[in-house]
């Protein structure tokens, strides 16, 4: 697959994403500068984590207006594969590609930890390599990661099975105790109706190499890449 990793000023997980796609999965990957107005020939776009534009104003709020985001929005609307991780997820909600908003963690503190999440669906292009209800340990590292959606919209999201990952305990229990940041319904990651846009707060790119603690994050990239290659 051909991948583009967008580099905003203040992105700081761009190199990690690039390294995982290129070195670990052998993908054709390049950086795309935020001032570019064309994405070029790519099959997938990754919006990386970090503090785009310093996260001033509101996380992801300024990035949404950068030249390249218009192209990303058009690409997504044509069915292109877009993955937004952490700050990238915030950009996806800010730009309307995904519903909801990411608010401050309930603790009002930054939280960085390995975090169990439960895979809610395995029939998507992002999770087909997972087993139903599988628990993956994928780290979170954010201050604004509390997913919020008004009740009626939340119902719509749940009804269309838009939730892909929920925060849970190591044994897979989804409850208040296993919710690290106060997200509604323990939501950690969602997809759009077209099934081509994924936004998630946890960082799968940090867990793709067994030498670096463990490699639970591989399943997500493997799902996307294998399905694309075999399609």
């Amino acid at each position, binding site marked *: 697959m051909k991948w583009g990793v967008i580099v905003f000023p203040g992105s700081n997980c761009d190199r990690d994403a690039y390294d995982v796609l290129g070195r670990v999965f052998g993908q054709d990957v390049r950086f795309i500068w935020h001032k570019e107005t064309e994405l070029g020939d790519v099959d997938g776009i990754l919006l990386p984590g970090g*503090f785009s*534009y*310093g996260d001033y104003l509101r996380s992801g709020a300024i990035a949404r207006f950068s030249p390249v985001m218009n192209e990303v929005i058009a690409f997504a609307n044509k069915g292109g594969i877009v993955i937004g991780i952490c700050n990238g997820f915030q950009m996806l909600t800010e730009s309307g590609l995904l519903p909801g908003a990411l608010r401050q963690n309930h603790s009002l*503190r*930054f*939280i*960085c930890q390995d975090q169990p999440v439960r895979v809610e669906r395995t029939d998507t292009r992002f999770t087909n390599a997972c087993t139903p209800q599988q628990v993956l340990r994928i780290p979170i590292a954010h201050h604004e990661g509390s997913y919020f959606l008004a009740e009626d919209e939340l119902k719509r999201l749940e009804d269309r099975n838009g939730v892909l990952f929920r925060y849970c305990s190591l044994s897979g229990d989804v409850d208040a105790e296993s919710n690290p940041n106060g997200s509604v319904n323990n939501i950690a990651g969602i997809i759009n109706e077209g099934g081509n846009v994924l936004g998630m707060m946890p960082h799968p*790119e940090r867990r793709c190499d067994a*030498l670096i603690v463990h490699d639970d994050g591989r399943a997500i990239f493997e799902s996307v890449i294998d399905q694309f290659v075999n399609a």
Partner: protein
Amino acid sequence: MTQDPFSGQTPTPMPSDPPVDRELAHAHQLTDDEYDQVIELLGGREPTFTELGVYSVMWSEHASYKNSILQLKTLPRSGGKLLVAAGEENAGLVDIGDGLAVAFKVESHNHPSAVEPYQGAATGVGGILRDVFTMGARPIACLNSLRFGPPEDDRVRYLVDGVVRGIGDYGNCVGIPTVGGEVYFDEAYRGNPLVNAMAVGIVEHDKVLKATAGTEPGNPVIYIGSRTGRDGIHGATFASEELSEESKSRKSNVQVGDPFTEKLLLEATLELGDTDALVGIQDMGAAGLTCSSCEMAGKDGAGIFLDLDKVPRREEGMTPYEVLLSESQERMLVVAKRGREQEVFDIVRRWDLQAVEVGFVTNDGRMRASADGQLVLDIPVDTLVLGGGAPQYVREVEEPAPAPALSVTEPQDFRNATLQLLASSNVASKRHVYRQYDHMVGASTRLEPGRGDAALVRVAGTNKVLSIAIDCNGRQLSLNPREGARQAVAESCRNVACTGAQPLGITNCLNFGNPYKPKMYWTFVEAVGGMGEACRAFGTPVTGGNVSFYNENPSGAVFPTPVIGVVGLAEDASKTIGMGFTREGDAIFLLGPDRAGWAGSEWQNITEGSPSGELTPIDLELEAKLQEFLIKSINCGWISAAHDLSDGGLVVSLCEMALTSPNRSIGALLEREEDVTASWLFAEGPSRVVVTVSPMVIDEFEEAVEAAGLPIEWIGTTGGKGVGFRGVFSVSFDEMADAYDNGLERALGLKPNA
């Protein structure tokens, strides 16, 4: 501009300048002798107000090391794999093979953090990161060493909260993982918290950037980064005095950081390093534009002329004095090759940063600056910099009274003592702290905080991994500075060895009281002496660091706290290990001498409240053998987990190894033929490590121990639902976890899991 328009002229006061006299010099913390020296160095004339400010900051303790440099020179500062001698560049630089080098340094930001904890700590991180990327190195890890007063104190809680948020917000935003560190609480730090930040970066040998203006006159001096404001003026001088009630009014001496700009500056600097358009680069840290320009000019004997009107400002009406002394953050000074400046502008502006030519290199060995159409500064550069004309002193020493005689009540109830120690804020899990730091960004942190004796961070593109530790036990130094410093170096290096990595070099941050007090200076000299002895014994040169004096307030000085940062290397990342038990049925051994005492121990601390007694001395030769053995046997695959004995002694180490086993599933079943005494369980002594060994390789392991001539004792087997000593006492996983996981939050009055 490449010609000095004021050639031959001497500087004149600005209309707004106050008259310069001896009293004003005193207010700038220059002594009578020093002021006389300034006049002499200026050829007999009084300095202008601007010049007085420049001498004041450049001769401050913080910038000149005037009371420490002669002691620091006694440390081993070259050899091994060092690529530059200590103090030559912004950070130490050590070869790690394959054309790569590691740059690292630790620095204090104690005074700013005492009055404004959030910004003080944040800018401490920013400053140390710049020291590393100024050398062309990409930072890959941060660590920090923090000391606070008792956690029950409201002011202390405010400081802890602010410092941790400041470190987190800055490092998290720049995107450098904070992978390790230490946090200690003691009465001795109530008025004077210590905030020491360390950064580690990787650079290719041929891309190392130097802090020089070169020797080519006419080369452009380019200012890049944030605009200059009035923040942090006299920060360096502020750091060179004791804290007092008035210190709160020093808030305006504290700089304000912007990590987003730092991230842009980092990327721009590294891109500049990929060109060959630069002669040199230096960050504007303490003493701002003054220090960076003087240091660059002083390096190879050039001069610099600055047109201060060109310096980008954040505020109207700033005087030359203010522009030169501002410590506004996220700024760099670059000397480019003439004709290549456009490349520099293009790269820097692509990152939406300022890049302005503000002066040029000269060959007259002088620092000259103009503003508003007049010359305001003309000083021989070598009189300003370390190793040149800046003063160097050896102060008076007086040996203080010996430490008080040992006072301790040995624990009777071992189970309770274990839980008390695990819950002590000095021993308990620091999860509350490191959870607020992104310790994984970079996707290279192999051993995360709380998982081993040192952090492990992979070197991208190789199989290598760096092992990094930072450590110091001030209580021990308060009892015996020489012995305590030897043990501080030993423990930091041992921490690195316990992961299977070879220590390469150390960086130090020497936090002491007022050097003009003879007893304090004696302590400083002793500690530096002990540090040198240990560094020589382990072959680990001191690559650089920082001295922070005046950590003192009306109620007294901090414990002497020479924080030691160590960077080690393992060639094969897959061989390195952590401290958690990995399998049931492994043999547990205690390596090292059966010598421990209560002096300066955590048990003494929690029961008596202050240290007393004589330290158990370290045998440096035995320690070196122990570390060599650990590194070898870990790389042979014999040892599955290793953890040194530190605060709280043997039992605490065993509990921590159980608590860091996978899903907290592997305990320890311990037994001993000899009596299980309180001292064996909880007292502390150097050169001791718990290791676990698979039964499959136990014969080879024991043979190697014998060949190395190391004392060893088999103490049990991994497994079980807690840590238990047969027939004596045991603690369950739930009990350990409750004490260890929540101890710090409880002490700080926070909700569990906060």
